[in-house]
């Protein structure tokens, strides 16, 4: 049964990614991208990586996608936003993502109802991950924190209203 769930979820992930690439509107693509990430999260669960599945849903489909939504909102200021919103909220646009999400939800129900028999692969618990993370991989954690700090500083610098240009667009 888990194998069937794996193939269904793979199909959902591939289909959502194809739809994401072919959408003309960035927000529509974002909806399908979230579905693709959620499907990959389900795959992680089926592969026995619970911790990674939780992180996938919380950080990828949660935090990073919120960043995209914020930027899309910031780039669409102005008068034409209203009719754009009206066009986005037409029924029919959200039906595809809703159906895919429904498939994933049904899969979750099946897993919950069937007890713990749905996982395949070797289950690696969060405790094992934590022990390895703060044991042999301590240096990698430090480097990741440095990378995040660098990203924070860079995003802060780039997000300023207008970086001073070098005098009329590079004449000098």
């Amino acid at each position: 049964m888990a194998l069937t769930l794996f193939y269904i979820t793979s199909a959902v992930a591939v289909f959502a990614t194809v739809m994401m690439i072919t959408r003309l509107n960035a927000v529509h693509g974002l909806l399908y991208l979230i579905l693709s990430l959620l499907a990959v999260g389900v795959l992680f669960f089926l592969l026995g990586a619970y911790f990674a599945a939780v992180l996938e849903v919380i950080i990828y489909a949660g935090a990073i996608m919120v960043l995209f939504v914020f930027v899309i909102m910031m780039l669409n200021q102005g008068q034409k936003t209203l009719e754009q919103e009206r066009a986005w909220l037409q029924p029919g646009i959200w039906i595809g993502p809703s159906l895919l999400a429904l498939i994933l939800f049904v899969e979750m129900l099946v897993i919950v109802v069937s007890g713990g028999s749905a996982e395949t692969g070797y289950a690696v618990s969060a405790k094992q991950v934590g022990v390895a993370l703060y044991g042999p991989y301590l240096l990698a954690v430090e480097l990741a924190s440095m990378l995040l700090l660098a990203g924070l500083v860079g995003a802060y610098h780039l997000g300023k209203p207008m970086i001073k240009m070098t005098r009329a667009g590079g004449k000098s």
Partner: protein
Amino acid sequence: MNGIPMEHGLLLSVVLFVLGLTGVLVRRNLIMILMSLEVMLNATGLAFIVAGSRWGQADGQIMFLLILTLAAAEVGVGLGLVLQIFRRFHTLDADSLNGMKG
């Protein structure tokens, strides 16, 4: 452990990676390019998770964590760049940004 065959998981990750690469190459909207980059990073993470599940080690999930960190930093800086480009050139078309003045 009659689990998922590793080849199928790796095949799925390759398919997702190629789809993301196609998106990067085909789309000209900067936000869509960033989203396709996310798909590519996610596919590499899936490959690591599949390998970690196959050998029953925690290393795959740790590599996924590092990829997650990388993706977060990349999205922060990339979206900052997109904002700056939009303010300066009032467009998100990657092809119209073909002039570099050093």
